[in-house]
């Protein structure tokens, strides 16, 4: 017997009314419009651009609005080698982003220092800012970045919003 199921939400089912938790609704809005702050530092930035460009098209996941202003961003994508000279600038930009905010460490360099074990390179951006998702690869393929984005979205979806205090200062 053939069964058909509707994809997506049919507003007619419950008479234009939907019942859900406020948290879930708010997080649903929030997770599908993460605006990235592209912290493009090195090679990974090129794959970040590729993820935003024609073939991979990050806008399918609602994150095409790359904002170079930290004030308008929710998600910082640290793409590339963080050097000590750059480290405090990265931290400063992170501090300027409004709460709530998430961070993806893209690539081996941003995650651990990668192949650059030298006097000039910070060994992982998690030394200065909290990281939500690490992406392996040197550089990671755009698919890997999109996967990381989906993982962040899942994390955002489960974030308690109104039920408990968002964050105690």
């Amino acid at each position, binding site marked *: 017997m053939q069964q058909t199921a509707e994809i997506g939400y049919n507003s007619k089912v419950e008479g234009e009314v939907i019942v859900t938790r406020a948290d879930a609704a708010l997080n649903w809005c929030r997770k599908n419009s993460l605006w990235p702050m592209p912290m493009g530092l090195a090679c990974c930035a090129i794959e970040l651009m590729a993820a935003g460009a024609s073939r991979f098209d990050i806008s399918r996941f609602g994150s095409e609005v790359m904002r170079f202003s930290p004030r308008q961003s929710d998600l910082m994508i640290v793409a590339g080698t963080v050097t*000590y*000279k750059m*480290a*405090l600038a990265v931290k400063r930009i992170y501090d300027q982003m409004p709460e709530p905010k998430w961070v993806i460490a893209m690539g081996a360099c941003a995650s651990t*220092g990668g192949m650059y*074990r*030298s*006097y*000039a*390179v910070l*060994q992982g951006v998690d030394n200065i800012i909290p990281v939500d998702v690490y992406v392996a690869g040197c550089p990671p393929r755009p698919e890997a970045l999109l996967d990381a984005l989906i993982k962040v979205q899942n994390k955002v979806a489960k974030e308690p919003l109104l039920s408990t205090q968002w964050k105690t200062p």
Partner: protein
Amino acid sequence: MTSLELADKLKSQFPTLISDPSEFRGEITVQISDANQMAEVCRFAKHTLLFDYLVDLSSVDNYGDDPRWTLVYELYGLGHHCHLRLKANLSEEVGELPTVSDVWRTANWHEREIYDMMGIRFRGHPDLRRILMWEGYPYYPLRKDFPLAGKPTDLPDVAFSNPAPLEGGPFVTVAGGKDTLAREPRVRLPDADSPAQSAFSKP
């Protein structure tokens, strides 16, 4: 005109200063005995011998030898398409030679980089500041007695640095060691007492 002829011309202009040209892989190198005369030689090379294009300027640390520094100038002429390498040694005590940034302006950044990486000063340079590392960084990283892993520094609100963990990092096999650890050290330490040694020996 060939590089060799140009080198000979340079030698006839400065007979006591310039060594006989030597050749390796088709490149002509001349050694200049007094680094203090470098700017003069370069000026002649540019204006008379028409080496109008300074390709590169680098420095070598001959750690353990005296004189410690070697400055290497790669000259090229866009008119005659000839390449010439000038070299000059410089002792660590002097550590200073005249700038050539008034001969070729491209030398400005090259000299700043050498100052930043090796600590060699250039007399008369218009703006001798660090270029790659930050202002206030206390070491000269390309010196041979500076470990690859780096040393800890802290300049509040500007930058900080910590030694990088080199376990599993780049390593080089050295022939003739008595055991595997000596033959394949995880890191080549220039100085046994450097802080990186203690960081390395920690479990």
